[in-house]
């Protein structure tokens, strides 16, 4: 603001907008619009390419000239990818881990968020700082130790190992996200309900909880995305092929297929199968994710 005022003072007043200028501005806007669409096509191309290759028959993919248009209608590649028996065990493993992580994360993060946004207590700030620090810790700096921990209690290749590690790494961000939601529900509303004869718990369940639903959904989807996509920790905690999650299966599928001539059609079909649920859920929550990560900076 101050800078704009300074600019206002120092720059000479000139160049009032003429009719010609307006025209030039409009055609410039049109050009920029065109540029935006070209960039959009460029950016979405890999996603398009995945689906396109997945739907093309293998004979066409074998050609040295790529087929850019149109989408083929062959589902052979999907049939081929799905006939890989380990897909279903990987799907089962991913589903079991992801569901456990989502449930645990919502429960743990929710009660913790209530604690830090409804109460002022000794150690609150220390807890918040600890949570913020641990959410930044990279799996790359911890997986050796996590492997050792899980293997020492004999839980390699089990659902429990990744569930515990994922919950621990997702809970900090979900606490932070839910904290905002809980703080957004005025405590007075609860107090009013209590004056009207509800218990504290009853007031919470009837008044606050419904208002929190969007926050809980957003945190749940966030946990889902993290657990469903995770690769690094799964790689060390689930060494045997029978217990892979979907990302590990997809990687193994590429490797297995590469020993012969890589069957890109099937690999792309497999990638599409792994990606579609993620894309759907992601589109639901993306707005909240962006604002959750940088809201302090945007508003501040």
């Amino acid at each position, binding site marked *: 603001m101050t*800078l*704009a005022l300074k*600019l*206002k003072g120092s720059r000479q007043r000139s160049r009032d907008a003429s009719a010609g200028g307006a025209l030039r501005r409009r055609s410039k806007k049109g050009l920029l619009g065109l540029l935006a*669409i070209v960039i*959009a096509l460029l*950016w*979405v191309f*890999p996603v398009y390419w*995945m689906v396109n*290759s997945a739907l093309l028959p293998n004979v066409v*993919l074998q050609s040295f000239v*790529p087929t850019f248009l149109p989408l083929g209608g062959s589902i052979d590649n999907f049939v081929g990818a799905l006939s890989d028996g380990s897909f279903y065990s990987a799907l089962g493993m991913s589903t079991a881990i992801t569901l456990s992580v989502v449930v*645990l994360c919502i429960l743990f*993060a929710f009660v*913790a968020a209530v*604690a830090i946004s*409804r*109460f002022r207590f000794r*150690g609150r700030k220390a*807890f918040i*700082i600890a949570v*913020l620090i641990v959410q930044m*810790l*990279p*799996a*790359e*700096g*911890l*997986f050796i*130790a*996590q*492997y*050792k*921990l899980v293997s020492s209690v004999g839980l390699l290749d089990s659902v429990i190992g990744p569930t515990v590690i994922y919950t*621990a*790494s997702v*809970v900090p961000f979900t606490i932070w996200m839910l904290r905002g939601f809980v703080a957004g529900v005025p405590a007075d509303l609860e107090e009013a309900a209590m004056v009207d004869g509800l218990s*504290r718990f009853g007031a919470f369940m009837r008044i606050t909880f419904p208002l929190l639903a969007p926050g809980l959904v957003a945190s749940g989807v966030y946990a889902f995305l993290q657990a469903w*996509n995770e*690769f*690094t920790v799964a790689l060390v905690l689930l060494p045997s092929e029978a217990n892979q999650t979907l*990302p590990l299966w*997809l*990687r193994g599928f*590429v*490797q297995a297929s590469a020993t012969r001539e890589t069957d890109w059609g099937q*690999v792309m079909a*497999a990638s599409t199968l792994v990606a579609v649920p993620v*894309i759907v859920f992601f*589109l639901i929550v*993306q707005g909240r994710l*962006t604002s959750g*990560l*940088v*809201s302090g*900076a*945007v*508003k*501040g």
Partner: protein
Amino acid sequence: MSAPQLRIRRRIPRTPYLLLIPAVAILLIGLGYPIVWQVITSLQEYGLQQQFGKPAPFVGLQNYIDLASTSQLWIVVGRSILFCLVTAVATLAVGTLLALLMNAVTKGPRIVLQIALLLAWSMPVVAAMTVWIWLFDRRRGAINFLLDMIPGVDMNRFDWLESPATFFVVASVIVIWMSVPFVAFSTYAGLTQISDEVMEAAQLDGANGWQRFWGIILPMIRPVIGIVLLLQVIWDLRVFTQITMLQDAGSKSSEFDLLGTYIYKLGTKSQDFGMASSVSILVLAITIALSWFYIRSLLKEDES
């Protein structure tokens, strides 16, 4: 804080602590214990023999000293930092330009661009990697085919993953593609906060586009840009999945390692947990040092 709440707090002071138990417990098991174990192990000789039950002797800072004197580590650290800085800065530049573009165009093109970016953003890393490896495929990849069509350029069967230089160019392009949407959306959110009146006033006073960008837009979105750059740097240090998948397609030789894959190989191939732990501690230390600024800005938000 209202009076009734104060009363409640005094009556049941234990409630907040009880509510924190589950979160604290899972954090201690999943992250706390591994960190402590890692610090201890980094001070021990923990190699193949210890994997089979031999007690691990404490060697003080020997692992760190050994590491500091291996040129291999410094090469990997330098390469990781270079990769991370170049990729993060390029991501920020492209993301900011796209945000400015979103701000400058009409609604139609803006929504098209936003949908494209969202789709790219939502791709799971592993699936995105397989597509990119297919795009960069030596023989049938679309990228070599398209580049080869440019007159005078011979990219027929060019192997991108053969030499470290092009390998990391490919890795960087992929990471930029994945990360730009987040930067673009965050920066765009910052841009929409700038009031139209300010921009119009500057325009009426004859400030050209360049002056408006440096004089008004940049100072106003500086906080967002700072946070986003910081997050990018931190995230680009952890590109284990991308590098591992590219090494699957190319070569697993150590010239293609960044910190993540370096630690992984120390741990799994050489079974040297002592050394792997001390490199891990180094990664954690770098991350925490960088994160501190980010955390401070979030704490400010909590206080407001």
